[in-house]
Structures are given as C-alpha cells and as structure tokens.
C-alpha cells in the first residue's frame, strides 16, 4: 500500500485509491463540486487541485493535479493549501461566481475562500448550472443517457436532444438529486412526475395510492434483472402491512 505525505501528515493509502480518497481518510478536507463517490472521477470542476511532488523530481518542482482522479503512489508529497493551490482555486471560484452569482452554494464556497464578489463581469442572464456534468454522468452511469452537454465554449449547456422531451428519460430524478446547486427543475407527486419537459405516470400502489418511482423506471430496472419486476408493484407501507399479516398467518400470534 502506497505511503505518502499530505500536508506533512503521513498517510497509508489503500491500493488503487486516488489522492482525494487518501486525503479524506486522513481527515484532510479538499473542496470539490463535480466529485461523487458513486461515479467515475471526472476532474471537471478543478476545485480539488493539489500540489504534487513525486520521487525522482527536482526538489523544488511541483505539479498541480486534480486530486479526484490522480492515483496515489509511494513517496508522494501532497500540499492541499500551498500558495499556488489557494490562488488557483480562488480563480476557479471567482469564475464560478461570475457564471452563477445567485447560487447559494457557490456564494458560500467563494465566501469561505475569502471571495465576496466576483472580479469578472457576471453573466447577464445567469442560471445556477455550473456545468459539473454530474447530471449527465449519473444518467450515463445508469445506461440511459437521456441528457448531455451540448454546444461548446460560452454556449455550453446541459440539455436533452434537440431541446425536446428526451425519449430515453425514465424519470428517476437522479440528475436533479445529484445536482450540487439544485438547478434542475422537476415536479413529482403520487400521480405524475415531470422533468426535462417529459411527463411520467407514477407506479402507484393499488391499496395506498403511494408511489416512489415512475412506470418507466420500473420497466427499465426490471429489464436490467437482479430483482423480479413484481417487487415494484406495491409501496413500502403495503409491504410492511403484508409482513405483519404474514406473522399472524404463520400463527406466531394469536
């Protein structure tokens, strides 16, 4: 297992772990926006940058790397709060604040870094999307790929194909739930759910009328296997009632 030092602290990292994982194990906080433990590391937001030195390099030579997707190796020296890291992270936060001046999370992270107001010109018609691509990556991870980033440069945005209701979307809401700035609007009830301009019918429990997933979601996951599709038919409340009845029918109870 690789042994490295993080901010002067000796850390034994798990085999194959990333610098970010090693730092978290050691209790060193590195800010990130686009990282999610359940998804492949991406290195998109550039907030998790650290200064890295490796054996064999000149003593005064350091490299800025994104800690979320850089593997650990024996003898590494990592600095998470060096002058260069703080300055670079500040620029990233300054730019993010210009892009999303109204997003409370970005305002908070920038303020924690000592930035109250952006030094760049804020976007004229801002939304809260920071283009971290967590939504598109979670959709890809589920093998659905209903949404993706479209266009390049300043016009880049997250959208369904042709800005129309995405045919592949199953209405699982994972994209909206993982969004760090909560900027994907949706509506959900026990009857209907809508997201990305697409309407979904919920899979309702026949007895209680409760629903947690859409019909499309149930079909998709039943098709993936692992669990029989019939498991999805009733709600958790109904299932618990069934269990309680089962105990009675098993004559455990009078």
């Amino acid at each position, binding site marked *: 297992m690789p042994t490295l030092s993080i901010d002067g602290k000796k850390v034994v990292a798990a085999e194959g772990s990333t610098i970010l994982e090693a730092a978290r194990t050691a209790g060193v906080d590195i800010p990130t926006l686009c990282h*999610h*433990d*359940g*998804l492949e590391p991406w290195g998109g937001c550039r907030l998790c940058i650290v200064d890295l030195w490796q054996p064999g390099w000149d003593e005064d030579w350091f490299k800025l790397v994104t800690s979320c997707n850089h593997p650990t190796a024996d003898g590494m020296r990592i600095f998470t709060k060096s002058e260069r890291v703080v300055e670079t992270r500040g620029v990233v936060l300054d730019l993010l604040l210009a892009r999303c001046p109204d997003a409370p999370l970005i305002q908070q992270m920038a303020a924690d870094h000592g930035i109250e107001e952006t030094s760049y010109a804020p976007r004229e018609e801002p939304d809260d999307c920071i283009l971290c691509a967590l939504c598109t990556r*979670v959709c890809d*991870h*589920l093998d659905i790929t209903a949404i993706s980033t479209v266009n390049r440069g300043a016009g880049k945005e997250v959208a369904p194909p042709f800005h129309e209701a995405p045919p592949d979307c199953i209405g*699982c*809401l*994972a994209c909206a*739930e*993982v969004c760090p700035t909560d900027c994907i609007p949706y509506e959900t009830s026990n009857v209907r759910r809508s997201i990305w301009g697409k309407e979904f019918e919920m*899979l309702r429990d026949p007895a209680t009328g409760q629903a*947690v*997933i859409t019909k499309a*979601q*149930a079909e998709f*996951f039943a098709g993936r296997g*692992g*669990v029989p599709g019939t*498991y*999805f038919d009733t*709600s*958790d*409340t*109904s*299932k*618990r*009632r*069934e*269990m*309680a009845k089962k*105990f*009675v029918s098993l004559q*455990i*109870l009078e």
Partner: protein
Amino acid sequence: MKMIYKVSVERCIACGKCELACAFAHGTEGKPAVSRINITRRGPELGTPVICYQCDTAACVAICPTQALVRNEKTGAVDMDRGRCISCRMCVAACPFGNMLWDETYHCVQKCDLCGGDPQCVPFCPTGAIAWVPADMAAIPPEVLDREELAVG
C-alpha cells in the same frame, strides 16, 4: 459472539418508543414518520414491529446501480454509503418487505444500519419485544407477556 437483532412480535404493545428513539437517533426532528423501525398496529396495544432484516441476498443491494449498499462485516448490517447514493429510489421500490424508506425531509433513503452495532431503539423497548442478543440465543422463544399485569388501573 455475533450479535443479532431479535424481534419478539408477541411481546409488542405498540407503544411507539422504538420509532421515536430511531427518529431522534437518526434525525434532528424526532419525527416517528421517518423512523427506520415501523410498528404495524393490529389492535389496541397489539403491534408488529417491522424492521430491516439485513437479508443475506438482498434485493436492495442487487438493484442499486452505484453499489451504495454494502454489507458491514462487523455488524452484519447492510449499510448505506450516502456518498455513493444517487437517490434514484430503486431500493425503496425493490425491497420486498418495505424496509427501505424514502425520506422527503432529508431527500435521502433511510435504512436500518443497526446503529453501527448498538441499536438505539432496543433500550427503549419496555417489554423486550426488540432485543440485541448473541446469535445463538435468537431462537429461544420469548416468555409470554403478561398483559394483565402491565395494565394500569
């Protein structure tokens, strides 16, 4: 000795203390509606506590697309790694016993983790309907609860 969560349904008086204890142990509001142990009330002072069975082959583990549900070898519980959860709610739909719960307040899935090997609900049960016992004692039938003696007035 491996410990096991034992439920003696015949001793439950449906007082709801376990639900409250759970809600306080895992949230700030103490709302029994978001408790991970749920009593199905069958009649006056008759309840069936239903709690995660920590299945060996668990539907929630099988359905989870991000491997957020993993067996804790120390406690025997199926633990939820919140960092990996993407809130797709498939485990809630898949659990055949209704023991995965969607919590609208915290926007996350709630499931019993046996409180890391020290279930907080157990000491609050006045009748011993729920207990944390060594595995070899789990099959011993519980004593019959004298409901008359418990009655007040």
